[in-house]
């Protein structure tokens, strides 16, 4: 084992890590936003909406993320062309991001739904008694309470997403894992770079999960 080539490769690895983090941040933001909308649809009293959201969640929860990534990578530009009638350049980054947002939304939806359901009905009734509309109740009362409760779960899911971003390797996007692998391949030290990548992932996600645990204790007081 010879790890001496790693320091020289750090700048390019760092660039890969930045891409990984971008995927993570945008993926979580988009996923939570879409997931919340889906959760409200699922809880709505309109059967059409709740069934639609239910189907969406079941659909994405039954297929592998890797399949979604590959699928979207090929299909998104085709679909965009179908809509706009022109070639729209969509890079691997965008299509992977779309895949993560749509896929993770199904998981975030379930977390948000459970969070909303854990809020006592009285809160809703009280807000309505004050003359708030359904939307206002949700936005001003229920969701803030629910998000406080489910923050640890959302963060845990985000750590899982952090690890899952490595799957973009399959479509050749240069994230952290792929740049480590590609450097290792060119230099002829694939093992060393792979071990290094594994260590970095471990340190980051382990410390993040420790922080989440601490936060969880604070929030549940």
């Amino acid at each position, binding site marked *: 084992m010879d790890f001496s080539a790693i320091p020289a490769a750090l700048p390019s690895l760092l660039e890969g890590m930045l891409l990984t983090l971008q995927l993570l941040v945008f993926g979580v933001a988009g996923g939570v936003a879409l997931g919340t909308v889906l959760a409200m649809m699922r809880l709505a009293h309109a059967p059409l909406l709740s069934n639609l959201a239910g189907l969406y969640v079941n659909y994405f929860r039954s297929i592998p993320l890797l399949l979604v990534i590959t699928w979207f990578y090929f299909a998104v530009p085709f679909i965009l062309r179908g809509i706009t009638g022109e070639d729209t350049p969509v890079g691997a980054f965008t299509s992977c991001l779309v895949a993560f947002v749509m896929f993770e939304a199904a998981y975030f939806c379930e977390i948000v739904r459970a969070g909303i359901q854990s809020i006592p009905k009285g809160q809703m009734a009280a807000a309505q008694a004050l003359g708030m509309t359904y939307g206002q109740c949700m936005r001003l009362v229920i969701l803030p309470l629910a998000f406080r409760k489910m923050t640890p779960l959302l963060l845990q899911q985000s750590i899982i997403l952090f690890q899952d971003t490595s799957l973009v390797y399959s479509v050749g996007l240069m994230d952290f894992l792929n740049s480590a692998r590609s450097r290792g*391949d060119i230099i002829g030290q*694939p093992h060393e770079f792979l071990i290094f990548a594994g260590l970095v992932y471990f340190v980051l996600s382990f410390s993040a999960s420790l922080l989440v645990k601490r936060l969880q204790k604070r929030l549940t007081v």
Partner: protein
Amino acid sequence: MRLASCLLGTTVAIALLSGPAFAAEELTGTLKKIKESGTVTLGHRDASIPFSYLATDPRQPIGYSHDLQLKVVEALKQKLGMPDLKVRYNLVTSQTRIPLVQNGTVDLECGSTTNNLERQKQVAFSVGIFEVGTRLLTKKTSGVKDFADLAGKNVVTTAGTTSERLLKAMNADKQMGMNIISAKDHGESFLMLESGRAVAFMMDDVLLYGEMVKARKPDDWTVVGTPQSFEIYGCMLRKDDPAFKQVVDEAITATYKSGEINAIYDKWFLQPVPPKGLNLNFPMSEQIKKLIAEPTDKSAEEM
């Protein structure tokens, strides 16, 4: 109905007649997209040494095909009057390159893509840029001399290549009982070979020389076997886009005519190349000389 087709006919006739006058102004297809977005997206490879690969800078592909690709970018700048045309790079693999050209992600892919009739149904090819034979890379001590020696052995090839199809078909037709591993890219195929998982790696001969350059001990390896096919590489672009194809073809042909190609060839096949500074020593074959003297966009099977 009649009137309609008559009208249509007239319109077409007018369009055809006035065609040349318009053509100079009216951009279509890829050219239009490039002009409007100010960006051209080039497909490149990860480990197709020395055609298109990443050596030191992970954002900057290099290689023989890449240099030709840049010639096309120069031509595009002139043709469209866009001196600061932006270039965007998109990494492709053997398996993703065709769908990505088709679906509009990549405008032009110059790597190590074989022009063949089957692919011509899906994409268009520029004039040929290289000619190779598909052979085997193996350890000097492995005892493998030709394809017949592979019966019952583990053989690796890269998924999505012509070699993969040839090898799988050969295995089925001749009932050789080979175990075929399809790796994701040439780098991974070579890793399988180097780590002893496969006794041989079937691929385009020149790429095999490229892999040897990267090996820990380049002298341990050798390229053997009767070529199973001869293949002409071309740059890939979207089908039915003659205006763009013309720009690409002209740029490459001009590089051939001016003799610049010799310097580019020399740089990548007869001089040391990154990342390890080793030399492929792959002198220009008769077929390649012919390809440069008489540029053609036909595939090897059509010749």
